[in-house]
């Protein structure tokens, strides 16, 4: 498994996952071999910004702009990214 530093590396959605809106589920999903993960609204906001290479700092900036005044946003994002890295939903972007 590729380990990378979430604070210093740029990363992107793992190309092996298919990220899309599902009308029947009324939510965004991640598709992978023989399976599906339903995403919460906040997970969707983060992952749709990972379709191109990005960094933790950029993401937090973008989300702060999109949701001004959201409390504890930076912590929530970092927590989600750590989990997403563990699940290999995101991978290091080649430099």
């Amino acid at each position, binding site marked *: *498994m590729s380990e990378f530093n979430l604070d210093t590396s740029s990363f992107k959605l793992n*190309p*092996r996952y*298919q990220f*899309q809106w*599902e*009308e*029947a*589920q009324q939510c965004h*999903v991640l*598709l*992978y*071999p*023989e*399976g*599906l993960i339903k995403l919460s609204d906040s997970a969707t906001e983060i992952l749709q910004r990972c379709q191109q290479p990005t960094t933790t700092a950029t993401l937090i900036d973008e989300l702060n702009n999109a949701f001004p005044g959201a409390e504890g946003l930076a912590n929530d994002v970092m927590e989600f990214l750590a989990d997403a890295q563990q699940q290999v939903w995101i991978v290091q972007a080649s430099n």
Partner: protein
Amino acid sequence: MKRTTSHIPMWLLAELTFACPVQCSYCSNPLELSASRKNELSTEEWIRVMRQARKLGAVQLGFSGGEPLVRTDLEELVVEAKSLGYYINLITSSIGLTAEKITTLKEAGLGHIQISFQGSNRESNKLLGGTDSFDHKVAMTKEVIKQELALGLNFVLHRQNLHQVEEFLTMAQSVGAEFVELANCQYYGWGLHNREHLLPSQEQLIDAERVTNEFREKYKGDMEIFFVAPDYYDDRPKKCSNGWGTTFMTVNPEGEVLPCQAAKVIPGLEFPNVRAHDLNDIWHNSDLFNRFRGTDWMTEPCKSCPEKEIDLGGCRCQALMLTGDATNADPVCSLSPHHDEVLRITKKAQRPYQEEDTQKLVFRNPGNSKKITAKKPELTE
């Protein structure tokens, strides 16, 4: 349109053809093999099916068969499926696959290839699958990994090869496979016909699971291994396809729609055809999909069982094959009055593996199909 269920058929299994270069004795296809391919759905018909299923909410698509690579329009179907928003799985023996074809299919939008192995080495793979294809399977496995497409290896287990689990996992690990499924075969179609020589002993299973656990421990994080035990050894049955008419829709090569791949063995059911009906109508309104949906159809002991929502009475085909009535409890359940039949069958399987028994397997090919169906075999022993 009347909506009878809130369930979404998340999975569409498209059995593109019954034609197959491999002759697996455990195949779940019917014993009557269609001699000709002229009645197969056309490209346009498959595209219509995929579009209708997608509208119903299907999101996982499996191209299987037979051998789906036999279809010359596979790439076209993958392109279309991708544009509809499916995640696309190809379930293949890898016979007919080339490095170029992997590239083309990946570019067309294929997400995942599952390659099946019949034996863990050249000789045994040839003996059990009827094709000299082991080296090709390994080469294609490496090629799929090299081209960074999601890969699953599937080793179908039974009495004649359970002792090969270690050799198989060693090969899988050496080529860098990340997902391996060790699935004991099920006893439908050809598998039922060959059950006596496929059902393993408990000792064989325990050995294979021990080896599997050793590999899991040793290669944690690098190789994920699923082990699917034959349910004849459980005391509770498995749900049919995650629940009849809840998740899966199988469309067979000639357009019949099935709640599970084996359902054709159940007499008295009519299988609606996509040539005559819309999938939405079939899913919601057909007698077939409503026949064993939910729990209303149940008889005792299922009807009043506190566990009825957990397994939904188990497999309808197994109930039919082992008790003669598809509305009975799956006799794998220890609460079934027919559970003795399962015990009798598993008891007979507690003999040691004997290499020469492999010769007694009846392979899935047109010649054997003709011989068997002419004789009208007795389904239960």
